[in-house]
């Protein structure tokens, strides 16, 4: 979008630097996306006026623009994510409420919303008998892939030097937050301690990948195993298991090991492990193999790309 920067700010070329600043501030109030979360057009307007202001706020670049040395687009800003894009996410850490207590009667839910609102006000201005829960502390913890998939325990060292054991639940996923009750800051005036909130990021694994509760593995097999079929050993997150490769298997075929994925808490069925086969050529092609395939090729014309080439043209 390349509009005249003066026009974007509602000004003319004769505007003073002060007028530019004033016009920009006025437009920021009406167009900043974070001040108008419901206004879908705000982002585009804000971008336009921010770009215009960037160009004109500096008398030097303004002079170059006026002289026609640079155009109105100037330098394109990188894609920006605004705060409002996150504000309504379920896990937004800046929403201090802990969700509706109890449930059922909608009237109770509204009462709860109002109660929490007034509670917040009272906390701020409470005079005598003041008691408040302690602050929550937020930590980042990188978890090894297998500990997240199978569950485990990790010891962490808090900034104050204290050591804390954290139980990683089975099937913990990337971005999950664990709440350790009472491990935050001390309360005020007899209030309860805050919580420790631990945000998990799962470290990638060289062999396993995860899709929800399913584990994905790419398994290399030899040409003879693919043609004749074979019993091979495949890794799973709980150790190696036997896997039967059917005769005539091909690269990209996916075999399912039922129940070998991430177990779910509460006795529900576990996820599966999906094994994708990948045929690999032998490290050394000897004469025997070369001679056999040379002969074999003469009598077995097959073009697996025929359909592909036809479809590519359609």
């Amino acid at each position, binding site marked *: 979008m390349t509009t005249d920067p003066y026009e974007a700010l509602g000004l003319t070329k004769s505007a003073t630097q002060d007028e530019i600043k004033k016009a920009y501030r006025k437009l920021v109030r009406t167009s900043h996306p974070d001040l108008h*979360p419901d206004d879908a057009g705000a982002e585009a307007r804000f971008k336009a006026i921010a770009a215009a202001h960037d160009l004109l706020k500096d008398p030097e670049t303004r002079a170059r623009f006026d002289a026609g040395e640079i155009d109105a687009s100037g330098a394109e800003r990188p894609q920006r994510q605004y705060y409002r894009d996150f504000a309504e996410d379920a896990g937004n850490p*800046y929403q201090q409420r802990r969700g509706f207590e109890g449930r059922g009667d909608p009237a109770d839910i509204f009462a709860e919303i109002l109660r929490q609102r007034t509670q917040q006000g009272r906390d701020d201005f409470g005079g005598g008998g003041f008691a408040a829960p302690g602050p929550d502390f937020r930590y980042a913890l*990188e978890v090894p892939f297998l500990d997240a998939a199978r569950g485990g325990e*990790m010891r*962490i060292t808090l900034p104050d030097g204290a050591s804390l054991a954290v139980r990683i639940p089975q099937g913990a996923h*990337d971005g999950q937050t664990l709440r350790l009750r009472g491990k935050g800051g001390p309360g005020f005036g007899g209030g309860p301690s805050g919580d420790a909130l631990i*945000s998990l990021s799962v470290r990638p694994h060289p062999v396993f990948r995860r899709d929800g509760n399913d584990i994905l593995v790419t398994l290399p097999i030899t040409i003879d195993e693919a043609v004749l079929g074979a019993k091979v050993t495949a890794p799973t997150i709980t150790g190696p298991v036997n896997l039967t490769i059917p005769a005539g298997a091909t690269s990209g075929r996916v075999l399912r090991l039922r129940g070998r994925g991430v177990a779910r808490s509460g006795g529900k069925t576990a996820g599966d492990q999906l094994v994708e086969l990948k045929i690999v050529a032998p490290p050394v092609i000897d004469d025997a193999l070369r001679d056999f395939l040379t002969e074999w090729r003469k009598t077995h014309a097959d073009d697996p790309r025929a359909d592909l080439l036809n479809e590519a043209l359609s």
Partner: protein
Amino acid sequence: MTRHLTEDEVLAAIPGLTRTRLVAFIETEMVLPLRRVDGGAPGHLFRQVDFARVQLLCDLSDDLDLDEPALGVVLALLDQLHATRQDLLAVTRAVQVESPEVRARIGAAIIGSRG
């Protein structure tokens, strides 16, 4: 894997943001980054939501010349607005799955309460 930004990366990505100011945002709890506890270099880690919030804070203080107390007021109002929107959204979703009669009754009650 979730990508967090370090303090240095945040400073590099937002022109005009100084370390002093970023530290002030953290100390006044206007932004709540995570702290590393997994043995890496100690310091703060910023989620995408924290990063966007720091950008908003910089916009408000630079473009609108808000000082710290005013910034606190604007932010508190903004957080309340988002909380209210989230509640409203939850109510709307709950109403949406109700029968037409119930929805009509709720609709009439809302129009009635506006006076």
